[in-house]
């Protein structure tokens, strides 16, 4: 398939999901599960020429096998929606000059491992627990802002407020700038998916911002992630500014809309499922399994791989240049692996979900995401005696790379 296939049929209704799926289809974004069910029975690895063309696996075993097929399935371009041709050329030129853009997520073995090992200690269980008090304090502050009014947008007023401030705190960014870079991240990840100018503009803003921070930390290091990266070495060499910016950029974008999507989906779920909501109030000991189950059911993230050598999966014959979407959300609804896959079972015991991916590119920040979900949901259930969705017609979901609710109006009752 050629890049020239990208634009023409966007927005046209899909007649055959097996050969012409559209990950940006409004109905698919709101509820993709019916499409996955149909595809698993009929054509478990679907194909499309939309958005630059891609393959879409829907079975757990296929997704796992593909995720582990690095570097034949390469991570050099993990974006679900490809950049516009001009930006693509710019990125290719940059990679030639400076190396991988967002290491380790855009790196393949053997370069991948040292960068992954560089960031993993930032997100060990012990490290993320040290960020819990900060996270809980933020959660209380956000609830203080709306609790008296009896209403809240669980996405805008709560879920979206916390992850940007936590990851900023970890990287070493001034928390007062949280609103600003939340806008940048939305600009690049939501708007930027389909608006090439926004994608470039916000990329430039974020990279420029980190360049300034690097210059400051070189003069006066602090106890934060950016200073640690500047002091680190890979293969005996310090990291270039380009690479440090890339790693920080990755931490910022990977740590924000993913986690707020999970928190938002969880609150949307409890606001619309009274029985599960009552059960969480009555049995708080369910939090650990409930969080894994919500991660399974509402898995927010799809990553892309690029085929480097011809490879077959079932009837799908992939050739170099093809894109493959790591459809972790669909894998997590596979009835061959999960009992009652399309139900949320808060105490589900068998749950090998792959919401954080699988294999060498598994999410480095999963402990942080889990802690943020745990802390924000516990504080929510503690401070709010009951809540429910109001104005369901106003609810909005976004999708593509990261799926989650962006508007969730609620009535809330103070505890």
């Amino acid at each position, binding site marked *: 398939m050629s890049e020239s296939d990208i634009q023409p049929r966007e927005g046209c209704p899909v007649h055959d999901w097996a050969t012409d799926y559209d990950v940006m289809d409004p109905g698919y974004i709101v509820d993709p599960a019916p499409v996955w069910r149909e595809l698993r029975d009929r054509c478990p690895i679907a194909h499309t020429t939309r958005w630059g063309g891609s393959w879409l696996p829907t079975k757990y075993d296929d997704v796992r096998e593909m995720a582990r097929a690095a570097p034949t399935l390469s991570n050099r371009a993990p974006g679900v929606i490809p950049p516009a041709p001009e930006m693509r050329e710019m990125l290719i030129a940059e990679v030639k000059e400076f190396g991988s853009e967002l290491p380790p997520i855009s790196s393949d073995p053997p370069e991948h491992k040292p960068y992954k090992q560089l960031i993993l200690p930032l997100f*060990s*269980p012990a490290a993320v627990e040290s960020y819990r008090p900060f996270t809980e304090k933020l959660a209380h502050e956000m609830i203080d802002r709306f609790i008296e009014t009896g209403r809240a947008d669980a996405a805008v007023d709560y879920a979206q407020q916390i992850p940007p401030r936590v990851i900023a705190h970890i990287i070493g960014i001034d928390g007062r700038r949280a609103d600003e870079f939340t806008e940048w991240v939305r600009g690049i990840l939501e708007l930027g998916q389909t608006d090439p100018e926004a994608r470039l503009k916000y990329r430039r803003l974020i990279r420029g911002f980190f360049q300034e921070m690097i210059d400051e930390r070189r003069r006066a290091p602090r106890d934060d992630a950016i200073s640690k990266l500047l002091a680190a070495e890979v293969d005996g060499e310090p990291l270039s500014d380009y690479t440090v910016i890339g790693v920080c950029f990755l931490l910022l974008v990977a740590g924000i809309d993913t986690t707020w999507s999970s928190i938002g989906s969880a609150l949307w779920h409890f606001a619309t499922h009274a029985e599960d909501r009552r059960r969480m109030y009555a049995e708080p000991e369910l939090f650990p*399994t409930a969080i894994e189950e919500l991660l399974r059911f509402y898995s927010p993230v799809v990553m892309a791989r690029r085929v480097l050598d011809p490879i077959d999966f079932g009837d799908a014959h992939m050739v170099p240049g093809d894109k493959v979407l790591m459809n972790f959300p669909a894998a997590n609804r596979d009835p061959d692996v999960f009992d009652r896959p399309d139900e949320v079972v808060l105490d589900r015991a068998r749950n090998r979900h792959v919401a954080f991916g699988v294999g060498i590119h598994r999410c480095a920040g999963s402990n942080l995401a889990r802690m943020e979900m745990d802390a924000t949901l516990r504080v929510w259930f503690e401070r709010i005696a009951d809540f429910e969705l109001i104005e369901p017609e106003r609810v909005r979901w976004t999708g593509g790379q990261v799926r989650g609710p962006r508007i969730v109006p609620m009535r809330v009752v103070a505890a």
Partner: protein
Amino acid sequence: MRICVDPEKCEGHNRCFSLAPELFEVDELGLSRALNGGVVPAGLEAKADLAIANCPEFAISIADED
């Protein structure tokens, strides 16, 4: 009951540690090891089963009794 973590399969998801911290320890890269030589203290068998059934890399198993 005795359990073991296959270091070749473990990718450091930390799911076992998160669900059964009494039974596992993880290093700063996330790689997991069964505590107490893998011997599961009485009463924690259900937690061991939970950890086994939640590992996305199929890295945890019940060790053969010697």
